C-alpha cells in the first residue's frame, strides 16, 4: 500500500540494526539450555502425567538427570542410555523409577552406547514431532472443510473464568456471537510456575490454568462449534513464563492455533531471567514454526507502563526485534502477529491521528504480518459510555490500517471481567465499524508530508536511534539498564536463572536437531 512514503533505506537500516542487536542473543540461546527446554523434549518424547503431588514426571525426570550429570549434555542421552541399561521401554516408567531414586544417570563412555542412546532419543522425539505435524495438516484440512474466518481482521475474544468447564460454553457462545479467535487467559500465577499443572482444572485466579488436558478439551469443543458455524474457530493460549517451551510443545500436540509469545515480555514484566527467556523463546518459536502456529507478541505492554506517545518507538524496536528472532527461529511472516495498541491518552490533542500514524507505521513496516491490534485499557476509567466510544475509534483505526487480529475492547475494562452483555455490546461495536467502514482503507491515504506521515517518519527515526544505542551497548546491557519500559533487568538476576545451563561440547537435543534440519 505504501501510504507513508517511508524511506526504504531507513527501513533497511532499522532491520539491519535489529539483526545486529539480536545476533549475540541468538548465540547465547544456541549455546545454552534450560530445564524447560529439556522438559519440552521429554514431553515430545512421550513422558506423560504427574506424581501424586501433581508434580509432572518430566520435572521429576529432568531433576533426577540434573542431580547426577547436570544439564549441559542435555537430558536426552542420559535418559535414553538409562532406558537401554535398565531395559525399560516406556520413558514415563523410567521417570517414575528415577523419582524413587532407583536409576542413576550418566553419559555413556562407550561410543556404541552413546550412538544408540542418541538414536533412541531421536526416534522418540520424532514420534512427538509427527503428532505436531499431523495436527498441522489436520488444521489445514478443517479450515478447508469448515471454511475460514469470513474477513480480516479476525475478531479475538477472551474467556477467563478459572474453570475449564465454564470456559467451554462461554467460548462456544463467544464464537457463535462472532468471535474468530478464542483466547483462554491463564491464571495470573502461572507464568512463574516452573512446572505445567496436569489435567482438567476448575480453579484459577483471573484465568484458567494452561494444561495439556485443558487445551485438548477446549480445542475439541471449538471443533464442534466450528462445524456448527461453518467456519474454523481458532484457539489461543500463552507460550510465556517459565514453561514457555513446554507450552509450545503442548500447543503443537493439541492443535492450538495461536500462542502469545514475546521475546522480552517475561524479562520486563515478570522479572524472569533474560538468558532463561531468550533460550526458552528460541526453542518455543522453533516449535511454533513447525506447528504452523501464529505467535502474538506483547508490544501493547510497553504502552501500558510508559506513555504511548513518548514510547511509540519502543514498540517499533520491539516489533523489529521480535521479527528478527522469529525469522531466525524459522517462523514465516504469516505467523507473526506483531503486537501494538491503542493506548494514547484521549486527552492528548490529535490523539486519534497519532494512533493512526503509529498503526499505519506498523502495517507498512511489516506488510505480510497479521498484526495484532490491542484495545485501550490504560485510559479506560470505568466510564463505560466513554469507553465504548474509545473502543469504536480503536476499531476504526483497525479497519483503516488493515490489522490482522483485532482483540475486542471491552468498555468495562478495569471494572469487571466481561459480562455477557459487555461482550455483546463490544461485538456490536466491532460489527458496526467493520460493516460501515471496513473498506475505508481503500480511500484513506494520508496527505503527503502531512501530520500522519511526519509522525510515522519521526517514530521510525527514533526507533533507529534507539536500535543504534542497543547495538552499541549490547542487548543485555540495554535490558539491564532499563531501556525497555522503566524496568532494569540485569542478566545475572531474575527468576529461573538456576534452570539455565551452558551446553557442554557433547550437548544433544533431538528436537532442536530435527527443527533445525540437522541429523
Amino acid at each position, binding site marked *: 500500500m505504501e501510504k507513508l512514503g517511508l524511506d526504504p533505506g531507513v527501513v533497511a537500516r532499522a532491520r539491519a540494526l535489529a539483526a545486529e542487536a539480536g545476533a549475540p542473543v541468538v548465540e547465547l540461546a544456541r549455546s545454552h539450555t534450560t530445564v524447560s527446554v529439556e522438559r519440552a523434549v521429554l514431553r515430545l518424547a512421550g513422558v506423560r502425567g504427574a506424581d501424586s503431588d501433581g508434580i509432572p514426571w518430566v520435572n521429576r525426570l529432568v531433576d533426577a538427570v540434573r542431580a547426577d550429570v547436570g544439564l549441559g549434555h542435555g537430558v536426552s542421552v542420559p535418559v535414553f542410555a538409562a532406558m537401554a541399561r535398565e531395559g525399560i521401554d516406556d520413558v514415563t516408567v523410567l521417570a517414575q523409577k528415577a523419582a524413587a531414586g532407583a536409576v542413576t544417570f550418566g553419559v555413556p563412555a562407550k561410543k556404541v552406547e552413546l550412538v544408540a542412546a542418541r538414536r533412541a532419543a531421536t526416534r522418540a522425539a520424532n514420534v512427538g514431532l509427527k503428532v505436531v505435524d499431523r495436527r498441522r495438516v489436520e488444521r489445514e484440512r478443517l479450515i478447508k472443510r469448515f471454511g475460514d474466518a469470513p474477513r480480516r481482521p479476525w475478531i479475538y475474544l477472551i474467556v477467563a473464568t*478459572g474453570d475449564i468447564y465454564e470456559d467451554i460454553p462461554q467460548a462456544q*457462545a463467544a464464537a*457463535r*456471537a462472532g468471535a474468530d479467535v478464542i483466547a483462554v487467559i491463564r*491464571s*495470573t*500465577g502461572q*507464568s*512463574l510456575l516452573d512446572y505445567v499443572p496436569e489435567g482438567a482444572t476448575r480453579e484459577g*485466579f*483471573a484465568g484458567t490454568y494452561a494444561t495439556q488436558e485443558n487445551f485438548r478439551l477446549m480445542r475439541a469443543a471449538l471443533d464442534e462449534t466450528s462445524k456448527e458455524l461453518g467456519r474454523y474457530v481458532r484457539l489461543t493460549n500463552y507460550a510465556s513464563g517459565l514453561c514457555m517451551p513446554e507450552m509450545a510443545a503442548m500447543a503443537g500436540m493439541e492443535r492450538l492455533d495461536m500462542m502469545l509469545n514475546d521475546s522480552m515480555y517475561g524479562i520486563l*514484566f*515478570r*522479572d524472569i531471567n533474560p538468558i532463561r527467556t531468550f533460550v526458552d523463546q528460541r526453542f518455543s518459536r522453533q516449535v511454533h514454526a513447525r506447528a504452523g502456529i501464529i505467535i502474538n507478541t506483547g508490544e501493547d505492554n510497553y504502552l*501500558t*507502563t*510508559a*506513555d504511548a506517545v513518548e514510547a511509540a518507538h519502543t514498540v517499533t524496536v520491539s516489533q523489529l526485534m521480535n521479527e528478527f528472532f522469529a525469522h531466525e527461529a524459522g517462523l514465516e511472516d504469516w505467523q507473526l502477529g506483531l503486537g501494538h495498541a491503542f493506548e494514547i491518552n484521549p486527552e492528548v490533542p490529535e490523539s486519534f491521528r497519532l494512533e493512526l500514524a503509529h498503526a499505519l507505521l506498523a502495517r507498512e513496516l511489516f506488510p505480510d504480518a497479521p498484526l495484532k491490534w490491542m484495545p485501550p485499557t*490504560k485510559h479506560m476509567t*470505568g466510564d463505560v459510555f466513554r469507553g465504548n466510544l474509545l473502543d469504536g475509534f480503536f476499531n476504526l483505526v483497525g479497519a483503516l490500517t488493515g490489522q490482522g487480529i483485532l482483540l475486542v475492547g471491552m468498555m468495562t475494562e*478495569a471494572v469487571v471481567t466481561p*459480562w*455477557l*452483555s459487555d461482550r*455483546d*455490546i463490544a461485538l456490536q461495536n466491532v460489527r458496526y465499524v467493520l460493516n460501515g467502514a471496513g473498506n475505508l482503507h481503500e480511500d484513506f491515504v494520508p496527505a503527503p508530508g502531512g501530520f500522519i506521515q511526519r509522525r510515522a517518519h519521526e517514530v521510525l527515526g527514533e526507533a533507529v536511534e534507539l536500535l543504534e544505542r542497543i547495538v552499541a551497548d549490547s542487548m543485555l546491557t540495554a535490558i539491564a539498564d532499563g531501556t525497555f519500559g*522503566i*524496568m532494569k533487568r540485569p542478566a545475572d538476576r531474575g527468576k529461573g536463572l538456576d534452570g539455565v545451563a551452558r551446553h557442554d561440547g557433547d550437548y544433544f537435543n533431538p528436537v532442536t536437531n530435527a527443527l533445525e534440519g540437522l541429523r
Partner: protein
Amino acid sequence: MSIVRPYGDTTGDGMVQVSFTLPVTHDKRAEGAAIQLANKMGLDPAMLVHAKPMGEGFTFFVVYGRVTHLVDTEKVQVVERDYPLLSAKDVNAVIKRKLRRRLSVVGACIGTDAHTVGIDAILNVKGIAGEKGLEYYRELAVTNMGAQVSVPELVETARAQKADAVLVSQVVTQRDAHLQNTRAMTAAFREAMPAGKRPLLIVGGPRFDELMAAELGVDRIFGRGTTPREVASYLVHALLGDQK
C-alpha cells in the same frame, strides 16, 4: 441541604438509568420481567427503553425510571483526607529537615497479582494524571519490586532497605484475593518486626474499602484515583508528623 434525589433534567425528579441481563428468551413476558425487577429495585414508574436478545436464552435491558429513595449526604461515611496535600518540593523539604536522610519506600504487588499498573502509577517517575511518581521525589528512596512478589521476599526487602513505608498494590480481587493477601502481609510484618520497628504499611487498589484499614491491619488504604502526591503527603504526615 443534606437530602437529595437523583437528577435527570429537573430537580427532584429522581430519574435513574440501569441496564441488566436476565436469563430469559426475549418476548413480551421477558420485558414484563424486566419491569418487575426495576419496580422491585424502587423504579416507579419504570420505562423499558431497550431490550435485545443476547446469545441463546438471554435478554439485555435498559430501563429508565423514577426512584423514590432519598439520600442523606450527612449520613455518608467516608475516609476524608486528614493531612495537608503538599507539593513535591515541600515533601522533599520536610524530609530533609526532619529526617536528615532519604525516606525509604518499598513497593510491590503481592500474591499472584500480575497487575503492576497501580504500583507503577504511584512509584514510577512517569506517574499518573500528570503527577510524577514517588521515584521523582529526590528525598524518597524507592524500591519497586514489581509483580508477583511473595510476602517473605517483601519482608526481607523491607528489612534490607530499612523501609520507612511499604506500599502494596492489589488489583485482582477474585475470591477476595486482595483481602487475603493483605492480611497475610500484615501478619508477616507483625511476626517479623516489633511494633516500633515496623514500617508504615499501606495498601492500595481499586476495590478496597478505605474503611477497612484497622480490620486488615494496615495503616492506610488508598482507593481508586489516588495520586502519587497524596501518597507522598500522607507518608510525610504519618511518619514525620505535621510539618513546620
